């Protein structure tokens, strides 16, 4: 960097312009590819929804409806239109911010999602937090003391985490920590005393009770979220710790680590100061993906803990042919993944010295 450009200041502005142009073009390209990704996602979900052998009209009018009532609902739902027209008008509505009405709740999908998404987000965020705080150190130590006792423990923990059905673990957790010990709250997001007491701001009960300054409500909400969050945390811990371990092993066998050791650096400095820094980037991706999968994939946990979240909302929609709910939910999950990717991209720039 100490070298100066011999051509000097004359070319600077034009080069900056070129750079700006390139940046704008790359941003535009990114936005375009994101839009196309989302459109593709919508199209695939839409088609799957339409070919599913479930009659959404029956869900609306019920089994007892007359043919005339059925036909009226069929037309009101726009199902008499050609598939492509249905899709285009749906996309048009979405662009205007209208996700349609859910047929299984009778309410606008946007309103439903505004209610269920914060519940899932809160749970997934806390779960990922637990997974990271325990999983990363566990993975690093397991790699550093390869074959040691901690490595063995970590392996068993991960194996159990991978193979235990979450349904069973959830019920056992409830039975022990709620039913027998009484340490945590039962299924649901809040106890009866606090239900509906805290004004909704973000929809996340923990955050809302803090905003309201209601410590009782906060403790109550915490006692309800901690068990399902730990459960999700356990699963992401299993994944994160295994990935951390293998990233670390790769780094620890690299030559620069040997060099650092030969130079007499302390083991701690080698591991945390050098090797760990280099795995930070792929690790961020792993964590972001694991968070993303918790956003959409915690259906069973949501059912066991009566957690009114996005996963069970989409699943319920799918089972009852409620395509507006499924499409709306899928778009939200899709956007989340896109944002998470973007977020880890940005983090890269901070973590990777080469990108500055």
């Amino acid at each position: 960097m100490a070298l100066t450009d011999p051509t000097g200041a004359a070319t600077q502005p034009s080069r900056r312009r070129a750079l700006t142009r390139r940046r704008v073009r790359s941003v535009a390209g990114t936005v375009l590819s994101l839009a196309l990704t989302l459109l593709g996602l919508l199209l695939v979900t839409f088609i799957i929804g339409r070919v599913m052998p479930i009659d959404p009209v029956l869900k609306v009018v019920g089994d007892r409806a007359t043919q005339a009532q059925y036909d009226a609902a069929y037309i009101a739902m726009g199902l008499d239109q050609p598939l492509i027209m249905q899709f285009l008008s749906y996309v048009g509505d979405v662009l205007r911010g209208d996700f349609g009405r859910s047929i299984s709740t009778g309410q606008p999908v946007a309103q439903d999602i505004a209610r269920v998404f914060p519940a899932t987000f809160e749970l997934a965020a806390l779960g990922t937090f637990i997974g990271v705080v325990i999983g990363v150190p566990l993975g690093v130590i397991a790699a550093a003391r390869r074959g040691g006792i901690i490595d063995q423990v970590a392996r068993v923990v991960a194996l159990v985490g991978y193979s235990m059905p979450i349904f069973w673990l959830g019920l056992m957790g409830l039975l022990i920590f709620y039913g027998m010990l009484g340490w945590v709250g039962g299924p649901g997001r809040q106890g009866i005393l606090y239900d509906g007491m805290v004004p909704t701001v973000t929809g996340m009960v923990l955050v809302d009770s803090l905003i309201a300054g209601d410590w009782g409500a906060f403790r109550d909400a915490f006692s309800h979220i901690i068990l399902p969050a730990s459960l999700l945390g356990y699963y992401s811990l299993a994944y994160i710790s295994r990935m951390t371990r293998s990233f670390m092993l790769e780094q620890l066998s690299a030559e620069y680590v040997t060099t650092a050791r030969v130079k007499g650096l302390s083991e701690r400095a080698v591991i945390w100061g050098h090797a760990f820094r280099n795995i930070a980037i792929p690790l961020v991706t792993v964590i972001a993906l694991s968070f993303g999968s918790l956003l959409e994939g915690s259906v069973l946990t949501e059912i066991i803990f009566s957690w009114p979240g996005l996963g069970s909302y989409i699943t319920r929609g799918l089972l009852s042919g409620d395509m507006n709910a499924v499409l709306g939910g899928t778009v939200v999950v899709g956007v989340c993944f896109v944002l998470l990717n973007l977020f880890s991209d940005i983090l890269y720039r901070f973590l990777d010295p080469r990108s500055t």
Partner: protein
Amino acid sequence: MTYHLTTRAMLLASALALAPAAWAETPADTLVVAHTIDDIISLDPAQSFEFAGNDVNNNTYDRLVDFDPLDPDAGFQPSLATEWAVSEDGLSITFTLREDATFHSGNPVRAADAAWSLQRAVKLDKTPAFILTQFGFTADNVDQMITADGNTLTLTMDKPYAPSFVLNCLTANIASVVDMETVMANEVDGDLGNGWLNTNEAGSGAYVLSAWRPNEAVQLTSYEEYWQGAPEMKRVIVRNVAESSAQRLLLEQGDIDVARNLTPTDVESIAAVDGVTILDEPRGRILYMGLNQKDELLSNPAVIEAMKHLVDYEGITGSFLKGQFVTHQTFLPLGYLGVLEEQPWTYDVEKARQILTDAGIEGGTITTRVRDLREYVDVAQTLQASMAQVGLTLEIEQMTGAQVLDAYRAREVPIFLGEWGPDYSDPNTNAATFAFNPDNSDEAAAVGLLAWRNAYEVPAEMNEATVAATLEQDADARAAMYQDIQRQYQAEAPIVPLFQRIEQVGMRDGVQNWWSGGAISSVMYRQVTKGE
């Protein structure tokens, strides 16, 4: 608010200080119920036709006549109407309305509101509208057929229907009296307030809807001005808890007062827990076996007769359906006018084999579709085993409820195993679907009739008897007519009623007067108390 906070803080402090058990105790004036309420689509009484939606509306609205939750067997009782008189020709009924009832908005309940509510339901023509339109009301004539004058309301029908039939239909949800002014203030594009009422409430019932969060919870608050006196439970919270084991844990811990969806296993283990009692309440749903008459084998009368003896009634109700169903072999549920209590069929493989041999039937294969609900699949598999013993092979394809229903309505399910729930509290509700099918052709597309779905050509005299029973003015004679229909039905029909649903309600000790609605209605909270 300060008061609330301090109480809450104290409760919390004591909860933390004491043993874990004290953590959970519902407040004395609050009833907390765990139930699956994810089927609510609409709360508009003109549209709602799902169990959980009716459970809400039964408490937020009143009707002209209602059941007494403390004595449901007494049948319909005066409610918003104090008395009624049938005209000489039997074509009209005039109701006198009480004048001390008010809606939750504070508006008085007038005969004009009641008439408008019925007219509105007919004009909106949503799924349950047939409960009213079967008396000859149409969108065009209903303003003349249902009229209000002062504090009286007159219904004029196209035929002299049995008064018990009409009044039973008026206990149905769709006959709820809504607050005309409030609803019309929220009308959008001539929808008669349907959009607004889907998520709001404008009734005069004992409870006010304070919140509905779909798939999560319904909250009701007592209506202090209720004409029958404010209910004892000031708050009712119904939480959606899908898992039976979660409901069981909540009940054991005392976090809820009532659990309504316990599986037999959970009922068994919770019955031993201190402080919990189980209440068995027969509901209206009938689990039946429909033998599709389009199937060559199944349309053979000998096969129909043999199938009735291949169901292990006692074995099934004694094992996997234990506590959830009782054997019931007629299409009217216990609790209905004219129900037949005879049980003509027993599980008898030898007899079935004899019947088939006598008819020269060597065997055969049937492939059917069964909804992937544990109860239905288990019944199907038991049937499969006993059919195998007489040389009949049953192949079972499991599908979702929606898929099976689609196929059933297209008359494509050879052996249907599933439940039918009555739509209103009169015997005609089931007679008109099990034992009535005026045109069995495919073109008739009477998809709503179970007889049609099973391609059962109901004999002309049974069709006529079903219609005649709706016109019989004398209730006893009417009951006898239904008994005759049921006997003939048992003798020949290919639709075989097997079991009646029992709801096993888990309750904390101290919860008194619970009523889930029996076979005829929906849950009612206003009479519930919580003692020590």
